[in-house]
């Protein structure tokens, strides 16, 4: 058994794969302040699901922001390499991964073997990330998971010109006071994220098939805007937020295979 743990800025994820590389359990929970504790929680959860003891696990790879704070992991690998590997597993010909997480968004160019050829990440501000959507959901006073379905009902998307989260928030408030419909504002926000991602795609050079991973991929509005902007199909795996952890688990297996 191989375990991948992904400690992101907002959520912690774990994926357990068996000796043939098939996923047998996964878990998602809040990261909180104690990364080690969060890792322990999701690890316990997947081992319970699989009804095994921790000592049955051959290798553990940690990834994500908290990757270096997990003492029980045998190795830390960046989320870039892990997302590429995980996406290739879900979408066998995958050449490009768009991963939008809590505080980072990235575009990764993947080679045939899952090797990272090039990548690009957002700059420091939160625009174009999950945090951006969270702040905006707050301003609009709607639950985060309702944003995607609402965005799909928009008929006249609002134009959000500001790229900065703080300014965009005040722009959203202005749009609300101007009587703009909520779903149009949300769709405008999705478009604004897509624009950010589009510029990163341009930087590394568009290639396909594209897999979209990370929690924001659950928002259909963003995926659809991105699809229209890039003019290509965006493939979203069934559980996009655990792809990093899946990649980590697969890399754990590969490492063990290599070491015999």
């Amino acid at each position, binding site marked *: 058994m191989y375990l991948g743990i992904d400690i992101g800025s907002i959520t912690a994820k774990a994926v357990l794969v068996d000796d043939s590389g098939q996923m047998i359990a996964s878990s998602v929970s809040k990261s909180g302040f104690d990364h080690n504790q969060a890792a322990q929680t999701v690890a316990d959860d997947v081992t319970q699901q699989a009804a095994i003891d921790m000592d049955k696990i051959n290798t553990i790879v940690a990834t994500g922001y908290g990757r270096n704070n997990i003492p029980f992991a045998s190795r830390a690998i960046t989320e870039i390499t892990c997302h590429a590997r995980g996406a290739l597993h879900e979408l066998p010909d995958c050449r490009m991964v768009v991963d939008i997480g809590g505080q980072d968004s990235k575009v990764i160019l993947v080679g045939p073997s899952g090797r990272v050829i090039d990548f690009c990440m957002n*700059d420091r501000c939160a625009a174009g990330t999950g945090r951006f959507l969270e702040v905006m959901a707050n301003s609009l006073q709607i639950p985060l998971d309702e944003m995607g379905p609402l965005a799909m009902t928009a008929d006249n998307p609002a134009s959000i*010109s500001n790229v900065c989260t703080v300014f965009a928030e005040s722009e959203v408030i202005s749009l609300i006071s*101007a009587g703009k419909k909520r779903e149009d504002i949300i769709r405008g926000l999705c478009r604004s994220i897509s624009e950010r991602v*589009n510029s990163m795609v341009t930087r590394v050079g568009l290639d396909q098939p594209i897999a979209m991973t990370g929690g924001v991929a659950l928002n259909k509005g963003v995926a659809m805007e991105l699809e229209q902007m890039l003019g290509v199909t965006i493939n979203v795996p069934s559980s996009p937020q655990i792809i990093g952890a899946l990649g980590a688990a697969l890399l754990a297996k590969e490492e063990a295979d290599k070491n015999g």
Partner: protein
Amino acid sequence: MAEQSAGPAAIGVFCSYVPLELIEATGFRPQLITGLEAERSDPRLPANLCSYVRRCATFLDSQVAQQELSGLIVTDSCFPMLRLWDNIQERANFPFQYLLKVPRLNSQSAIDFFGRELEQLAEDLSLINGIAFDKEKLYSAIELYNHFRSLNQRLLKIIMVGGRPQLAARLTGLHASASLQNRRELNLQLENLLAEIEGSEPDVSKAQRPRLLVAGSHFIDHKLMSTLADLGGEVVGVDSCLYDRIDTDLIKADKNDPIPGLAAGYLYKTPCPRMRANREHLFQIGSQTDNGDYDGIIFLQMKSCALHSYNLPVWRNMMHETGVPLLILEIEDGEWASPRTVTRLEAFLESLRG
């Protein structure tokens, strides 16, 4: 690149240091690109380049640009402009693409250098039209533009008197469309505007409005001017680095060789902060303010224009000394009439009225 069915082909010009007369004289129609043509900034360029340059980059890819422009002229006036040139070199494919080198000084050697640059540009432009560069044509183009400048000066004087709150907005509105228009037609419109105004008395009751100077690093959108009038203010002076350089001081050119006069004219015009002479210009505004010409000053700082940013403490200090209130309004991408902008303008006017 589609030839225009009527009239000469258009050459897009990206900074107000490019003499429009020269383009006109070589058989083209100059079109000053203000950045307002594009809806938003090109997301591929880094955010520390100003929105003028990032919008121009978006505009270049647009169908309008592809269909209407036969060529582009960019200057090396600042680094964002130079990077716009790099973008054009990499991405655009207009039949004529030219980088014009503009000195930062207005000394004799700088004028000589710029004169040679202009001569080269004139020859290259003439070559595409298969004609020889004709200095007489340049002289008459200068006369045409000087007529425009003198009309403009008369209008600005009337604006300065006050009592016509919407006039600045109307004038800048005409300027905003100037880039698309024939200069002769524009002159006619300015003459009509003058005739209309000179026939009427200023509304003295409106002279009670706060008298404003609008300055800044933008091509100032007329919507902002008219918002100020609607909010109860009156713009009596405009000092934008794009506006003044094109539109006020007359070019003193020699009929036999107009190039040196043209070069000097463009280097001596109201300097933007890239020019060594910028500080003298600021002193001049300071003394106008000291004379009581303005009740308040609005400085529109284009986000990411570092050249102007270094003047912000100078403006503050100057206004502190004269006691005239100053509003520094940082404008992001095209926020001319955004609620955020309007709220600030409204609050500033409220504070001026006490």
